[in-house]
């Protein structure tokens, strides 16, 4: 009898449920969708039980021998809880939403299979399981993206997704092979332990490069982000599952192997650079998108970039916090996207927005920095000193908060509004630093601490803070320049995502006629 964790029971349970839909793939498959929700709830229960198991028994490896093992640790249980929870929400949503679809049963089966694959992925204890988890997730997601196989746009999106995902799979597989060969073990824990022992062998260096490449592809980072911004061709629950579950796989990969990745300063710098660039790029493009789901997709590109930046800075626990927070937010955003008509309508109702001038923006940044100093000092006194990276990250986030304050400081804004936005800003800052403390407490033990910054790290930190600061100032002054004729061209290029997708289409034949089978 193999040693098992409660969480390791989830994937087989879900696959069993999924297989029941094989016999009822069509319209209105009786009570099976209700049963599917019950099974998802059971899976969530298993994740909670695994949490108890972890707290009582501590982290360990479970499963069928060294090559096919699963981890029971803070990270896998966190992700297991997240994926099961979002999975339950999505399956419950789909019960009504998909009612009457010609391939209703098939949809539920595929959704359950996708959740099962991601659950395997997030608790992979060995390299082969990791590779299998990625491959299975990609296969199932492709089927979901092709849920309406006759739509040429769906065919294009699925083709694009498959190319990028499979390239990522190859990178993971090659990295796994190199690690197995280099360290003589397929066990992730033993690989990590060996990586700490002494300098990385060449094969491991190559593996880290491949891992970074895989993470960049799978988180839809610049410049191959195009697959993520075009997959609204599948029903809304797929988008929710993709943006709140599957897209995290790249981050989980890095966080799981954090001890190894952090050994390579070059890899960390690459992550920080690509991540920071993607974050700013995605966030700017998002500003120009008028279709709500498309804007959400660009937002995901940006948020995943930010998560990579956190990884690159060695703030692993914060990256995991970002994954959790973003997943919950984005799942809700997609599932409630039908309300966008009312949301947009409500924006116009209270009259014109008060535009902050230069003075107000300067005051807001000053105020935000004071706020930051106060809050950060407070937390430091309680929790001990912070790393340079964490302080820098806090500054970047506080630039964002300054935007909220600036809106309230606009000359035309009434005093009551100013009070409300300052209160909200304070609340946001406290919540942010509070969650940070929690994240460090919960996951900090299991993850490496941020490296002591050398010249390269300092350069990256300064670059990141400056670029985020610059964009933050531009954003606060936004109404003053957004409609200036000189920026019209910039807006067009950004709305098109700087054409990277079009170039990818051109190179991959995405502009060709598709067969309307």
């Amino acid at each position: 009898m193999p040693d098992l964790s409660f969480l390791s029971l989830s994937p087989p349970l879900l696959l069993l449920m999924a297989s029941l839909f094989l016999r009822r793939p069509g319209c209105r498959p009786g009570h099976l969708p209700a049963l599917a929700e019950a099974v998802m709830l059971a899976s969530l229960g298993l994740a909670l039980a695994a949490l108890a198991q972890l707290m009582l028994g501590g982290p360990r490896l479970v499963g069928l021998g060294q090559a096919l093992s699963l981890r029971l640790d803070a990270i896998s249980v966190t992700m297991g809880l997240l994926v099961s929870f979002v999975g339950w929400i999505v399956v419950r949503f789909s019960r009504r939403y998909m009612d009457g679809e010609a391939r209703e049963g098939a949809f539920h089966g595929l959704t359950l299979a996708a959740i099962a694959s991601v659950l395997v992925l997030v608790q992979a204890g060995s390299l082969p399981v990791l590779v299998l988890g990625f491959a299975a997730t990609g296969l199932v997601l492709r089927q979901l993206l092709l849920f309406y196989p006759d739509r040429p746009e769906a065919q294009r999106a699925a083709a694009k997704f498959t190319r990028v995902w499979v390239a990522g799979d190859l990178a993971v597989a090659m990295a796994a092979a190199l690690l197995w060969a280099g360290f003589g073990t397929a066990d992730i824990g033993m690989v990590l332990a060996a990586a700490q022992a002494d300098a990385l062998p060449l094969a491991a260096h190559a593996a880290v490069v491949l891992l970074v490449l895989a993470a960049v592809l799978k988180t839809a980072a610049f410049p191959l982000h195009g697959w993520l911004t075009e997959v609204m061709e599948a029903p809304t629950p797929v988008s929710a599952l993709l943006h709140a579950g599957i897209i995290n796989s790249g981050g989980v990969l890095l966080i799981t192997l954090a001890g190894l990745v952090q050994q390579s300063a070059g890899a960390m710098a690459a992550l920080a650079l690509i991540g920071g660039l993607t974050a700013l790029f995605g966030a700017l493009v998002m500003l120009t998108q008028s279709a709500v789901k498309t804007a959400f997709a660009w937002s995901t590109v940006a948020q995943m970039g930010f998560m990579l930046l956190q990884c690159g800075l060695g703030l692993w626990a914060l990256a995991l916090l970002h994954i959790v927070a973003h997943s919950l937010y984005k799942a809700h955003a997609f599932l409630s996207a039908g309300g966008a008509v009312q949301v947009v309508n409500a924006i116009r109702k209270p009259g014109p927005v008060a535009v902050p001038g230069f003075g107000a923006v300067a005051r807001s940044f000053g105020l935000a920095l004071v706020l930051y100093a106060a809050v950060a000092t407070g937390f430091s006194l309680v929790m001990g000193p912070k790393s340079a990276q964490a302080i820098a990250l806090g500054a970047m986030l506080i630039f964002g908060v300054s935007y909220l304050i600036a809106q309230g400081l606009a000359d035309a804004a009434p005093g009551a509004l100013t009070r409300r936005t300052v209160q909200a800003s304070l609340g946001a800052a406290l919540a942010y630093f509070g969650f940070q403390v929690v994240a460090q407490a919960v996951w900090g033990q299991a993850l490496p601490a941020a490296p002591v910054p050398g010249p390269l790290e300092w350069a990256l930190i300064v670059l990141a803070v400056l670029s985020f600061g610059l964009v933050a100032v531009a954003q606060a002054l936004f109404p003053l320049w957004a409609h200036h004729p000189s920026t019209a061209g910039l807006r067009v290029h950004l709305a098109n995502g700087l054409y990277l997708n079009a170039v990818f289409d051109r190179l991959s034949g995405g502009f060709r006629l598709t067969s309307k089978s």
Partner: protein
Amino acid sequence: MFLKPLQIPAAKASHFLRAAEAAARAIPPAFPLEATIAVNPFLGQTTEDLAQTAARLGRVAGTALTPPRSRIAAQIAAGEVNDDDLAAALIACTSPLKPQDLALLKARIATEAPAPVALPTVAELAAGASDTDWPAIMARSFGLWAAGHFDRGQALWTPRPGQGAYAAWREWATHDLTPEIAGLTGFCAHVATAPDTAERAVLRAVDRLGLTVEAAETAFHRLLIDLGGWSQHARWMLWQAELAGESDSALTDLLAIRLVWDEALLAHVPQVAGDWQAVVAAHAAPVSASADQVVDAILQEAAERGYQRRLARVLAGPAQRSGRAAMQAAFCIDVRSEVMRRALEAQDGGIETLGFAGFFGLPLAHRAQGTDEVQAHLPALLQPALVASSHGDASAEETLRIGARAARAWGRFRQAAVSSFAFVEAAGPAYGAKLVRDALALGARPLPQGPLPQIEGGLTAAQKVQTAAAVLRAMSLTTNHARLVLLIGHGAQMTNNPHESAYHCGACCGQTGEVSARVLAALLNDAETRAGLAAHGLHLPQDTLFVAGLHNTVTDAVTLYPDTPAPAHAEDLARAGAWLRAAGQQARAERALRLPGAAGETLARRAQDWAEPRPEWGLAGCGAFIAAPRKATAGRDLQGRAFLHSYDWQADQGFATLELILTAPVVVASWISLQYYGSSVAPAVFGGGNKLIHNVVGGIGVVEGNGGLLRTGLPWQTVHDGTKPAHEALRLSVMIEAPTEAIAAVLRKHDAVRALFDNGWLHLFALEEGQIKARYRPGLIWQPTSPAHPAA
């Protein structure tokens, strides 16, 4: 300036511009989703009949306008349509292409008509010749521009406001590199050197594309159809401008944009020039229906005659009632009220119901709490004359607005570039709780309602009396008032549904009927109004109390608004509440049978479920419009398929109310019926697409999937339950209890309304004593119907 003189002589140029205008008028307006109403998709074709329109739209949109013949074959097999219906439809057809006799007609049913194929555009020809999907590339590039240009607040960074569509697009397209990356080299330069006005661009394109005057109209129409809902949105802007006595050029601009594209593609793929000239020649040929289109139109008419025959059987003569009713309840004419009215009347013999358009004749615009914006609450054909405001005192209003503005600032914090990261880290975890709340429907919003709206500036006593008298006469509510008269508007409660306003009251311009009902009830209870009505010959009993209500058409719950204090009526109100609750239960049980997976007790849940694609059926199934005293239809099961308008011609002096009915509610009902018709038979062109992949764009509409063309009309889920259509595609049968001469006299005065009947977009019957007496035939002819075949 060295403007190159146009190659086209002025006289010819004006022909082309007239063709562009005609093509623009052929496009129906699509109202933005925040307040959408049903529009007749054939609004531009009402002067042609179904077969001719099928020929036209077959050419420009590649769509059939009738259900597949297998449907009528099934109806014949089921006995719903018989030989009499087919024969009568055949006889009524005036086309020389019609089958010689019934046997030949029936023989045609077995084979489906060939699916029409639209004449290709240059883009389609170029795609075939160069293996590059130009239509898709253009839809993507154009759709991205249009989404930004028409955005009403989704994106934080929208294009510079204040530019016309053509100028804005030129600014966009001279920068957008997508077409060039796709291979259309030099497109930016082509746009940069394009003429500076839309009209000049149209004329240059006409020249370069070799379009002839004869070909222009359907060629232009073809291109506007190619832009999907975007051209319908632009047509709506023209509609709104004209309602306000102005004009708008966005639709011509879109045509110019589309022509500039084809110009570039023809130059890019010159080998299609020959094929394109053949297409131009085909456009130049007059539009005429094929024999198959004539047959399909006859079969459609036969299906409608079958429905009319079945309906006539239900309308078997009036019920008798006498004495003062214990309670009267006026509902909107909306077909969903029919079920509720029947259920309410079943509660007690003393209950009488009436039907009237849900805006109750008040030409209102409404200023809701917390905003200065006004929202029209009347049919889209009319211009508001009064503003009702729900603003409370200044401090309450201020608090509300500060709250809304703080929420908006938080929303911008969530959306903006750098702050979005801070937002996710600070607020993201809270969304876990929101997910649970929404998944379990714990936070569903009820239908919005505010304080009693007041007419801004107030009304003089004379205005009050005049308005009240006009409304009461229009409602045929002039005598025999009960102690309690309910005025019940309607609205549909739902969650997370972009098409919510389409389920609200169409007569209130896609809003709920709450405001109109409450304003009218207050007006009719007003002491000054009551004092003056007698002078208008209207004698309301002292003890008559008007109370407004709102019928939630998803849950069949009715909320009453006892805005006027009336302690003496406490008992009446309590009793009314009990009746309404019981009626709601009965109506739910009846409606649940039609909704997949529903039971009476679970309907309320559909209103709160954020995943529900079919909260209710809306007006699906609508088939008839009956203007008659309620006694003509009381007690008959009309299955929620009939608009019921109360009308007593004997009390109608000079037939002014008849004229009102035929020119307003009948036209609105025709828009609704034909929208359902168009979305059912031509879903690719006039349907809203698949709800499951809808992507709300700009706050105004939806696109499918990633982007591209705006989808207007009713989504597939609204007209189909997954296994079978939820709407039987029928043109509306209008039945009016009035003398035929009086009806004809009104039609003689209103050409646009008459065209709807003469061209078969509506059927018209005259009733007498609740039974069909005559059928209208084109040319103001009345054909008496025999008792054996009441609808023949």
